[in-house]
């Protein structure tokens, strides 16, 4: 694999530092099925997923983050349109470490934890 060693990228009009590009890219992401036998569809920089109960999962990273103050983004599908939308949220901050972070998936209508067929998360920040 060849390496480009440059400080900036430009299209001729706008210029951006490569540091912004690297810092702004996802360092880890995952797309998994939280229903039935839980399985990972696709991912980057994940070693495993812990299924901790209905609607509760933990993502375990292969290459850890530098500090526990990184940023996570989450989304979840609704397997059954008649029972409302789902919201994927970060679990309590204490469970977030440089090596893993947790997700709770909540049914917006009932307010209870829920297994969605498609749950996606990503993490941005500095790697260790």
């Amino acid at each position, binding site marked *: 694999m060849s390496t480009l060693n440059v400080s900036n990228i430009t299209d001729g009009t706008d210029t951006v530092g490569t540091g912004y590009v690297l810092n702004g890219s996802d360092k880890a992401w995952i797309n998994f099925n939280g229903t039935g036998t839980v399985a990972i569809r696709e991912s980057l920089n*994940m070693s495993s997923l812990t299924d901790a109960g209905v609607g509760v999962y933990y993502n375990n990273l292969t290459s850890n983050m530098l500090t526990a103050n990184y940023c996570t983004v989450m989304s979840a599908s609704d397997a059954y349109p008649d029972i409302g939308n789902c919201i994927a949220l970060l679990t309590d901050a204490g469970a977030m470490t440089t090596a893993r972070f947790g997700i709770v998936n909540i049914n917006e209508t009932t307010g209870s934890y829920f*297994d969605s067929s498609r749950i996606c998360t990503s993490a941005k920040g500095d790697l260790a």
Partner: protein
Amino acid sequence: MTKHLWERLLEAKSRLEPVQSKYRVLFEDPATPDEPAKVLVPDPNWMAAALAGDILPPIDTYQRDRLVPDGEPKEHPYSEPIGAMTEEEAIEYLVMKDIDPAVWRDYKGNRTIMKIVPVEMIPSDRSFRNAWRIAQ
């Protein structure tokens, strides 16, 4: 100089086919006895990297890094990668990496709190998921 682990993972993802493991790890956390049994699901890209070799760092680097404070340099990203593992060895590596040592090393009780099982043994019906326990 050894490439950063994340770069090695990126490169591996571009050339290796993901491998869905035939195993799952069931475990209970002795610190939270009221919670249901947990199921560790190996990542297919990670498993492909473990089987291929020359990508993942030695497991002891992760164990030493557990003791390194946040923000301090970690050992595992720049460690010399280890060779290929069998799927069984990869699962044992994953247990030591992603499950708390209180489960697989320090527990002294009589209950069986961890089992490596074929994926077919995990129920696909999750109606009573929060009541799952490891059979004794």
